[in-house]
Every structure is written in structure tokens, then in C-alpha cells.
């Protein structure tokens, strides 16, 4: 029996062109996956030391660059925790609550960076000269970590606000815009999940992302104009901190550490998305091949001939 036209040569290991073997291989691989993953993954600890096994290059999305980057990121985050929680002094005005800012500023910076990258990547996808699904995957990966970091930003910010201003929430332009960005990107991720071909998904979400670039400044401006009537603009001013050298260092370290985390994640995640897309394509080819083989086998049986 010939391999049907359209399936790539050398798809899964152990395939010899017969449907039976192919499906068995897929089942075996699937079982291996869950067993293997269950025994080798350790749950992360609160201090951020995610387990990164030195597995073979083929099994995962790691390369030497990302492994080095990953180690450096963990180191940077550890040093950040040390300085932020222990070594740096409390602020003259804010007291201990300034320690929250060392994490908060890093996450808000990454959240906005992720938003910008998603927008730029979406534009790059839509622009014919640079169009490639890799841009789409970068946009998607960036949005995922962006949404998480925006949630963390809002959470840490509200805790800091509770201490400093006495309220968990304040209706000023920056806070409100961050909340809107969060919701907008949740919507963006929902649009990515709508299904269809990879190109449809890419085009749809790229357009939505660029519309968000249009919408967010409008929201920010409207809220700022709105609150200026209530003279709340001055609230944002009290985030100013008199920084001594150690505090400034810790703030910058926080920004750098979380940015490294962002780069590491986007690299890994867009590779995972590439694999998911490839698997989708293969899955379709495989399903088509299996249907064709079923048809041929049924015909064989009814005609009583062997091939």
C-alpha cells in the first residue's frame, strides 16, 4: 500500500505506511508523554526556582541560549528577592511598603512591553513584506504573559495602594487604563481561540490587537480628562519615591529580571505554538490519510481483492 500523496515522508517514528501502526504509535507516544511528564516535573516553589531539567534537545523547546538565559533569570530573580525583601532599607516616607514596588514596577513594565510587542508583531504579520506565522505566534505568546503580568500588576498595585492610600482601588488614568488593557487582552486571547486556519486566526487577532492600540490611548485620555474634573490627577503623583542608591538599584534589577523572564517565556512559548500548529497540520494530513485508507480498505473488502 502506498503512502497517500500529501503526507510528509518520515512523519512519526515507526511508520511504515500502514494505518494500524500509525495509530498505535500515536497512542504509545501519548501514554509516554503523560507518564514521563508526571515523573520528571517538580512543582515550582514560591521563590521562583522553576525546575528546568537538562533533557535532550529534542524533547523540549530549549536551546543553549534559553538555558543560559533561564539560569541567569533565576539568579536575577533570587538576587531581586534578596535585595527587595532583606537588604534594601525601608523608605523614609512609605516605610516597608516600598518593597512591593520593587516587584510591582518590574511587572508593570513587562506588562506594557508585552502589549507593545504584541502590537508590533501583529503589524509585522499583516504587513505583506514581513508576513509570517512566527510573528503571529510571538504576538500570542507575548499577550499570554502580558495578561498574567497585568493581573499581577493590578494585584500588587492594589495591595500597595491599600497601605499607602488606604484604598485597594483608585480611579485614576493609569490604574484604570491598566485594568482596561487587562480586559482587552483577555478578549484578544479569546479571539485567538476562535478556531479556523492558522492564517485566519493570525489575521483576526492581528487586527484586534491593532484596534486595541487605537482604543487604549483613547481610554487613557478619556479617563484622565474625566478624573481631572475631580482633581484626582494628583493621586498619581504620590507614587514618587525618594530613592537612595540601593533602592534605585533594586528597582532597576526588578525591571531587568522580569524582562529576562519575559524574553525567556516568549521564546519558549512561541516554539510551543509553532509545534502546536505543526501538529495541527499533521493531524489534518494524518486524518485525511486515514480516511483515504479506510475507503481503500473498505473497497478491498467488498471487491475481495488483496493489495
Amino acid at each position, binding site marked *: 500500500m502506498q503512502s497517500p500523496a500529501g503526507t510528509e515522508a518520515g512523519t512519526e517514528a515507526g511508520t511504515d505506511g500502514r494505518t494500524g501502526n500509525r495509530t498505535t504509535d500515536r497512542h504509545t507516544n501519548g501514554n509516554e*508523554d503523560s507518564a*514521563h511528564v508526571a515523573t520528571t516535573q517538580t512543582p515550582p516553589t514560591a521563590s521562583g526556582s522553576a525546575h528546568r531539567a537538562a533533557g535532550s534537545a*529534542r524533547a523540549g523547546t*530549549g536551546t543553549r541560549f534559553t538555558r543560559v538565559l533561564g539560569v541567569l533569570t533565576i539568579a536575577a530573580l533570587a538576587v531581586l528577592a534578596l535585595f527587595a525583601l532583606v537588604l534594601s532599607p525601608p523608605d523614609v516616607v512609605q*516605610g*516597608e511598603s516600598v518593597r512591593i514596588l520593587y516587584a510591582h514596577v518590574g511587572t508593570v513594565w513587562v506588562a506594557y512591553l508585552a502589549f507593545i510587542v504584541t502590537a508590533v508583531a501583529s503589524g509585522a504579520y499583516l504587513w505583506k513584506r514581513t508576513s509570517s506565522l512566527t510573528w503571529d505566534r510571538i504576538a500570542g505568546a507575548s499577550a499570554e504573559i502580558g495578561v498574567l503580568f497585568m493581573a499581577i500588576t493590578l*494585584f*500588587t498595585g492594589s495591595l500597595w495602594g491599600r497601605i499607602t492610600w488606604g484604598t485597594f482601588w483608585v480611579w485614576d488614568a493609569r490604574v484604570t487604563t491598566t485594568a482596561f488593557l487587562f480586559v482587552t487582552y483577555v478578549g484578544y486571547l479569546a479571539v485567538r481561540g476562535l478556531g479556523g486556519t492558522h492564517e485566519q486566526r493570525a489575521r483576526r487577532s492581528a487586527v484586534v490587537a491593532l484596534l486595541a492600540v487605537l482604543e487604549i490611548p483613547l481610554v487613557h485620555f478619556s479617563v484622565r480628562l474625566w478624573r481631572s474634573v475631580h482633581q484626582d490627577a494628583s493621586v498619581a503623583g504620590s507614587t514618587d519615591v525618594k530613592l537612595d542608591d540601593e533602592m534605585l538599584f533594586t528597582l532597576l534589577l526588578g525591571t531587568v529580571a522580569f524582562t529576562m523572564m519575559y524574553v525567556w*517565556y516568549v521564546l519558549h512559548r512561541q516554539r510551543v505554538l509553532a509545534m502546536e500548529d505543526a501538529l495541527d497540520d499533521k493531524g489534518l494530513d494524518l486524518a485525511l490519510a486515514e480516511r483515504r485508507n479506510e475507503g481503500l480498505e473498505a473497497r478491498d473488502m467488498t471487491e475481495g481483492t488483496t493489495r
Partner: protein
Amino acid sequence: MDHAGFIFASYIAAFGGSAGLAWYAIRRGRALGRQLPDEDKPWI
């Protein structure tokens, strides 16, 4: 330390969230990586 609860909650959220995301990324990468041949992985 004043407000220790809030401070630690912030760091657990920031670091824990990052770690969780990282763990998810690695795990998904391994699971998919086993199903695909190397030629589908341009980064190798």
C-alpha cells in the same frame, strides 16, 4: 516588618505566577516535543 502579609503576598503572586507560567511552558514544550520529529523544530 510592617505589612509583611501584603508584601509577601505580592512576591508570591509575582514570583509564583512567573514560576507557574514557566513550568507550564516547559511542560507543554516537552509533551509536544515528543510527538514531533526534529525537522519540525527550527530552533534545534
